[in-house]
């Protein structure tokens, strides 16, 4: 349509005015689309940003492709490794545990000490120097410290700290603060979540630490960069053979490196979230769009007739209504994209607390916007297609007659004796619902979808609570866990037991192993426990303690699945410490584990198999609450201790992390859930109001009060909300069951815990949202023009 000199055609002006007239409904659709798009832009953008940052970081700082830890190998082995087929570069280094004494910490803080050669140009696992300067190889007392740890304790370059290694105390000067691709996610072994304050990474020169670890002229870990196209698995097998004489613990690829694994799984989780959530929002948007545009075309039948009578072609009329859709879709995409950017920045900020990159910028490329636009457009078009087609199909003559009134006829739903006691206003509600079951079903489903988001989030909370409860109250009931630098004799148990205030000591032995079953291999560890553990227990799916006895092995379900080894299967276990025996043991049990893929054996059986006297690698302690401070003090003086963790601290830390990360996400999802619920309820009620304002006005004229008139309309909505509650509950449970499965990894299992309070909470959210939307519509009812009832319909 060309109107010379005017920017907007007459039809476009009509479009804008019509949009303004239905602004509330349009806004509801826009917001629901926007929520879906925002989530998509946030999760996809965050995923891409993390991926890109990770890729660039790994590449620039040459993150190792393969790790090969050993007990002790002479330095010249490096050249043998470098000569292997498929290796482009290899270095050796020393790594080990230490304890950092900090005046403000009640217990020593665990540290991982890593040797680093500052003179190597572009080394494997290079270091990003964030602050201060590189260590001077000529000065043996200089170290670099992981920046987040330093920041958590207010340490800066120039400060000095004491580190205890094998009982000997060393004084170091911090020359700089650093980050490394190896420690993007720095988490001590056995911990649930990363806590910057409780785990330190220390870099020092070989010379500075070789004596401390008794590794003069030797290394205990090799890092490899592989050549393009190299066969990693072949190389790993080759390394294991080559390094076996040096006490190889088992080489592994980057994919199994702890920090990288957490990062990769985080990416997978983001992907899953986006993939599952976005369609829910867009599905609801399709439905809302459908009811809004269908209604619009219905009310404009006469206008469509006039346009066509005046010679507008069908496609022009169709295009006019399609423009509605485009404007709404565009607005949804723009608002969603903006919201997504904002959310992305918020989430990126949270990520940076736990994932230590030199920089992490949330970047949503134009591509994400294009996708947002396409997705939004598709959802809107899908919702509107039927209505637009009906506008095209209307013949001018038919279009100018009002649509036939709703045809209620005898013998269809809600009549008979049972119905006799129901008042007439309620009958109107039931008959309406029965008359348009499809629309009622869609509305119910839309509200159900909104509720399912809240249900899912509550189940998520329940799962976390359950994990916390099981881990800290049922499985691990100790106060303190101490780990030793290397396995100690039974005597350590007595020594620990003699500390004033320690009331119970329970030994544990953890040994690195390679599990083999048929052709499947899996690196892992065996946790050897006393037969009837009290402080650290193994539980079955009913949370009942499992007795670990006999010569067999008990596997966690995840490990049993990985190895395809059910109870009764004979598996091979290659121990990677002591005399490195190879054992064939039967699987005697499968238990549930929330964290990791543990395997259990009785401690005396393991030691028997190892042909060693009773040796332990750590111990769980119970301490008198009043004497804890002195217990910690005593522990600090134990030379063999590699780490001390306080369960109380771990619990608090876990809670803190959950509050900040998933907590924020839950908050966002709750807001989105409200947006959908309000959007659906408002739209349904608003359209119901427009369609029936004549009936409602008639009721008012006949002497019905505002509340009674409101009851007829909102009672219908309330009924639909009530129908939606079970749907939302089931839907939420199903989505959560799927998500929990999809988000569970080898690192941790997310349980599906059904608890009614989760449903109650979600129902509350939906009811509140529905009440707010209904209250808004009640306002329209209160303002009804009664005189209009006397006039002709529509």
């Amino acid at each position: 349509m060309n109107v010379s000199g005017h920017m907007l055609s007459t039809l476009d002006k009509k479009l804008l005015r019509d949009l303004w007239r239905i602004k509330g409904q349009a806004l509801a659709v826009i917001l629901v689309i926007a929520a879906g798009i925002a989530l998509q832009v946030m999760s996809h953008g965050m995923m891409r940003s993390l991926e890109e940052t990770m890729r660039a970081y790994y590449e620039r700082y040459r993150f190792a492709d393969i790790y090969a830890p050993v007990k002790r190998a002479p330095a010249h082995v490096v050249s043998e490794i470098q000569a292997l087929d498929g290796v482009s570069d290899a270095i050796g280094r020393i790594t080990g545990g230490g304890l950092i004494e900090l005046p403000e910490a009640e217990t020593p803080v665990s540290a991982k000490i890593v040797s680093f050669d500052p003179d190597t140009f572009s080394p494997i696992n290079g270091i990003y120097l964030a602050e201060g300067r590189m260590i001077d190889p000529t000065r043996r007392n200089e170290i670099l410290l992981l920046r987040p740890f330093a920041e958590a304790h207010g340490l800066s370059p120039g400060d000095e700290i004491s580190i205890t290694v094998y009982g000997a105390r060393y004084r170091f000067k911090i020359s700089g603060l650093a980050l490394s691709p190896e420690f993007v996610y720095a988490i001590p072994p056995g911990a649930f979540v990363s806590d910057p304050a409780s785990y330190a990474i220390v870099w020092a020169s070989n010379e500075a630490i070789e004596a401390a670890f008794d590794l003069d002229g030797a290394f205990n870990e090799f890092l490899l960069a592989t050549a393009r196209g190299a066969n990693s698995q072949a190389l790993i097998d080759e390394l294991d053979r080559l390094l076996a004489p040096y006490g190889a613990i088992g080489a592994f690829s980057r994919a199994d490196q702890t920090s990288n694994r957490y990062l990769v799984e985080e990416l997978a989780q983001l992907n899953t979230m986006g993939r599952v959530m976005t369609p829910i929002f867009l599905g609801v948007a399709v439905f809302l769009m459908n009811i809004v545009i269908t209604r619009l075309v219905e009310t404009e039948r006469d206008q469509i007739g006039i346009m066509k009578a005046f010679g507008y072609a069908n496609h022009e009329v169709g295009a006019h209504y399609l423009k509605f859709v485009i404007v709404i879709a565009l607005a949804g995409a723009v608002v969603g994209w903006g919201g997504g950017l904002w959310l992305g920045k918020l989430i990126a900020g949270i990520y940076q607390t736990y994932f230590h990159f030199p920089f992490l910028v949330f970047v949503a490329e134009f591509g994400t916007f294009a996708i947002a636009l396409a997705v939004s457009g598709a959802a809107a078009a899908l919702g509107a297609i039927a209505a637009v087609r009906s506008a095209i199909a209307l013949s001018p003559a038919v279009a100018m007659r009002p649509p036939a009134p709703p045809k209620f006829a005898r013998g269809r739903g809600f009549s008979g004796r049972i119905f006799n006691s129901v008042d007439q206003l309620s009958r109107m509600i039931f008959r309406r619902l029965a008359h348009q079951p499809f629309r009622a079903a869609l509305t119910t489903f839309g509200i159900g979808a909104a509720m399912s988001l809240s249900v899912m989030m509550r189940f998520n909370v329940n799962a976390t609570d359950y994990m916390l409860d099981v881990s800290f109250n049922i499985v691990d009931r100790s106060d303190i866990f101490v780990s030793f630098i290397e396995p100690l004799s039974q005597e350590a148990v007595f020594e620990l037991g003699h500390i004033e205030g320690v009331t119970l000591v329970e030994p544990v032995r953890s040994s690195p192993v390679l599990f083999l079953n048929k052709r499947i291999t899996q690196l892992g560890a065996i946790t050897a426990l006393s037969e009837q553990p009290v402080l650290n227990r193994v539980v079955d799916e009913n949370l009942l303690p499992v007795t670990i006895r006999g010569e067999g092995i008990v596997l966690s379900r995840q490990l049993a699945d990985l190895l395809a080894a059910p109870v009764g299967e004979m598996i091979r276990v290659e121990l990677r410490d002591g005399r490195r025996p190879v054992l064939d043991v039967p699987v005697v049990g499968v238990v549930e584990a929330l964290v990791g893929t543990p395997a259990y054996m009785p401690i005396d059986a393991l030691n028997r198999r190892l042909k060693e006297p009773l040796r332990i690698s750590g111990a769980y302690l119970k301490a008198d609450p009043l004497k804890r401070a002195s217990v910690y003090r005593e522990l600090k003086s134990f030379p063999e201790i590699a780490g001390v963790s306080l369960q109380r601290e771990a619990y608090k830390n876990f809670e803190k992390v959950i509050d900040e990360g998933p907590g924020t996400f839950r908050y966002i999802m709750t807001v989105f859930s409200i947006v959908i619920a309000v959007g659906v309820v408002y739209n349904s009620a608003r359209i119901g109001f427009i369609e029936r304002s004549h009936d409602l006005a008639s009721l008012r004229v006949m002497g019905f009060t505002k509340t009674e008139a409101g009851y007829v309309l909102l009672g219908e909505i309330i009924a639909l909300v009530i129908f939606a509650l079970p749907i939302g509950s089931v839907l939420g449970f199903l989505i959560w069951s799927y998500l929990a499965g999809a988000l569970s990894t080898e690192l941790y299992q997310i349980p599906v815990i059904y608890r009614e309070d989760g449903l109650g909470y979600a129902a509350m959210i939906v009811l509140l949202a529905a009440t707010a939307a209904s209250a808004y519509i009640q306002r329209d009812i209160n303002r009804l023009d009664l005189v209009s009832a006397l006039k002709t319909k529509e």
Partner: protein
Amino acid sequence: MGELNGPGTARNGGQEQRPIFQTTGLTKTYGSGAAAVHALRGVELEIPEGELVVLLGPSGSGKSTLLNILGGIDRASGGEAYFKGNELTAMKERALTAYRRRHVGFVFQFYNLMPSLTAAENVELVAEIAPDPMQAFDALKLVELEARADHFPAELSGGEQQRVAIARAIAKKPTVLFCDEPTGALDSETGVTVLKALQTLNEELGATTLIITHAAATGAIADRVIHFADGRIREVVKNAVKASASDISW
């Protein structure tokens, strides 16, 4: 407001009726300034209780506006209107709702039946909120529609729908019955049956009945005919003899 039955609740017992409605200087203006439309320009009126009154006049002459104000669904811009001595023009919205609920029956031009309720249920709808209603079946019997009690509006003809609407309006035993163009959407023959029903009800139930119509012939069945023009009452004619609805046509 409570009960609106002021002094003078006596049914029409032969002696001079005190007015059920009384207005003084009633005006109604829509809009303002140059765009102002004066729908009523000072209406002085008294309607005795129990009469059947027909309001005649061209479109826009103000008869609907007057009916709406007396029916408690619209507000006057000036002047006063009284129902049995109670000032309608001073009532709050809640009081007006109670007034309609208790005393007023409405018959609309387009019937305004609830499409999702059967004929009987449409009648019961109003009976449910009335203190002393008649049985829905009895109300339908009065309009000779008892056989169609279980039909939905979509299954009834226009004349039948309007008779259901009348049954609905009278089921509460209203003090006054307002009918805005009750025959406007009907053909002449059907219109007569509707008017007949209204006339019978006025005589049997004694409800003061106000009928707006375009059809001048309808005036013959009234006790009193009020002619409207240009927002004012032009003339009030009292019929010494009322014609039967079945004798008129238009």
